[in-house]
């Protein structure tokens, strides 16, 4: 049985017809275990795409394929292609460090560095060779924090530890830290799963604002969140060998109201997963 994904995106929905990143026939293995099977997933530029699906279906693995974070697991390897700016990022001559500088990532648990708020933001810029005067760095910190809707809350305590903030503030600090290096794409791996509903709402609002300038891919367990925040939704599930694959991919509204696949409908209506 083949799992040809049902992709219901047409050019009109894509808008100007550009994809920020596109996976083609991607397989990801951990040792001999096939975790993600033959996924072709084009991600639309400056939109929010959500990846949903039951636990263990390879959502996070898929997300990490977009910035080659899987490379950090010794046993992981990938076949297939992920095109970014016309280049397959899995080509031999591509440096994963370079990829990660253009494809930023926000993690499940807020993980600010145990440094000051200021240093949290400038560190990424510094390691990527951002040269500037003290004023340039201050400007970078302010714009990044403003873009992450955190400036008003922390502008008087930029030199306090990032860990002194609340969970929601820490997560917005992580977002600010990511946009400080001006990536094209921001990957978010269940960014709200450790947050309370109010902090979650603020992050979701922030994501909507950020999507004006950035392409966002979010993995979420929370289907309401995917429905609220995303423009496109990819539904992953797994086969009998526990290999995750893309079941259905389309405009969020259509996936949630009129899914083509029975499995998608069952998952969305809470019948499994």
């Amino acid at each position: 049985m083949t799992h040809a994904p049902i992709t219901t995106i047409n050019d009109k929905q894509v808008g100007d017809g550009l994809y920020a990143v596109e996976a083609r026939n991607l397989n990801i293995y951990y040792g001999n275990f096939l975790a993600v099977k033959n996924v072709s997933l084009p991600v639309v530029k400056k939109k929010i795409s959500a990846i949903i699906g039951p636990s263990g279906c390879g959502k996070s693995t898929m997300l990490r394929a977009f910035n080659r974070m899987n490379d950090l697991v010794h046993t992981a390897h990938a076949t297939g292609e992920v095109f970014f700016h016309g280049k397959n990022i899995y080509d031999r001559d591509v440096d994963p460090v370079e990829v990660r500088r253009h494809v930023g990532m926000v993690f499940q648990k807020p993980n600010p560095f145990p440094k000051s708020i200021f240093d949290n933001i400038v560190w990424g810029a510094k390691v990527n060779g951002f040269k500037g005067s003290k004023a340039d760095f201050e400007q970078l910190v302010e714009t990044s924090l403003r873009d992450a809707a955190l400036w008003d809350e922390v502008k008087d305590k930029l030199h306090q530890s990032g860990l002194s903030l609340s969970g929601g503030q820490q997560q917005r600090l992580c977002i600010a830290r990511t946009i400080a290096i001006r990536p094209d794409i921001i990957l978010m791996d269940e960014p709200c799963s450790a947050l309370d509903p109010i902090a979650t709402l603020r992050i979701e609002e922030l994501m909507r604002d950020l999507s004006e300038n950035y392409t966002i891919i979010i993995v979420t367990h929370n289907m309401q969140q995917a429905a609220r925040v995303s423009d496109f939704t990819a539904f992953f599930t797994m086969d009998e060998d526990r290999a995750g694959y893309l079941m259905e991919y389309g405009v969020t509204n259509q996936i949630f109201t009129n899914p083509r696949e029975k499995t998608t409908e069952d998952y969305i209506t809470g019948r499994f997963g």
Partner: protein
Amino acid sequence: MGNQDFPQDIQEPGTGMQFITNLPLRHRIGKIWVLFFQLAMVIGIAALAALILNIVNDSTGYMAYTAKIDPLDLTGGRPLESLTSEELNQILVENTTINRYKTIFKEKPLEEWSQPELLEAVVRDVVKLTVLKTWSFTESLKGIARLRQELIELKPKEGPDASFLYKTWITSRFLSSPQNSDPLLAGLKTAILGSLWIIGITLLFAIPIGIGAAIYLEEFANQELWINKLIQTNINNLAAVPSIIYGMLGLTIFVRWLGPITSGSVFGVGDPNVVNGRTIFSGGLTLGLLVLPIVIINSQEAIRAVPSSLRQAGYGLGATKLQTIWAHVLPNAIPGILTGTILALSRAFGETAPLIVVGVSTFITVDPSNVFSQFTSLPAQIYQWTAKPQDVWRNLAAAAIIALMVLLLALNALAIFLRNKYSKEY
């Protein structure tokens, strides 16, 4: 306590399960275990107290001696050690023949003599002091009369004329004098300096290599690979290898094979008295090998304890592996690494066996001046003193043990201070 409010144990029909609360017995068992834990702690503290009391007890007490001239008569009751060089010289002038006085100062003139050297001359040529017996603090409580009886039974000839002096063996003179064959003049300076030099070499060798190996094993090596598993297992086993085996290793490699380097002769700075490479350099490297596995294992644990979320955050921002390690992994692992290094340092500082194998000097009076000097160390010095037949050396050994422990505590306190200082920054 309103136990009747709780539902009584009910047996569900047909399940075959039965709950018996038996709460008093469970609490009783708990109390017995707590009692055992408390007992274990009391025994531990008692053992430590016994150790410390025993050492302190030996480090002070009465000494019986005979002297041609009682030093207290010479000085009008002041301890001989507290005299200035001029006063000591005056004693020599008054109490030696002109010929003898000339002989004493034949090799170097009076101006070049230090106070301890003059003191030595006075004790040797004027006082002509012989220690007959020493007693510990608790024995000294019996009083001079009883002690004199003991002495007469032991040494009927000298006993009746012996003088008694209450002596505390650990003095600033003791700490700052070089080694000497006369127990009253012997000091610890040579051994303390030797130990500090050795520990310096050990740390310079073991810390960078140990932390480097730990970083490689934790951050770069593929831990699934059989060769890395083998290396890891071997490091763990090496930490448990008896120290004397490291001594053999050091003797073969550093003293014999690398003798020209460790003795400094290839650099032209060697000490001609040194046989092969029996130098501080060899001793320090040997102890470095000894503590290397401990440093590696402790550093690995500290590095492993840094949450992987920090590494991921670093990589996610486009940092290279090294940038991430340098900026986030190491700073967060430093407190743990320091703690591990404290343990390693303490171990190295107290090690005796490997140094004896490598060739610690049995008797040197010259302070070590560089890494190519011959050496002795505090524990080796203590060992040699305890091996001597006269009991006065036992008192000196006790005093030296106190010095060793104080030095160890000071080094540990410094390391703990550094650790806390680093920890606070996060």
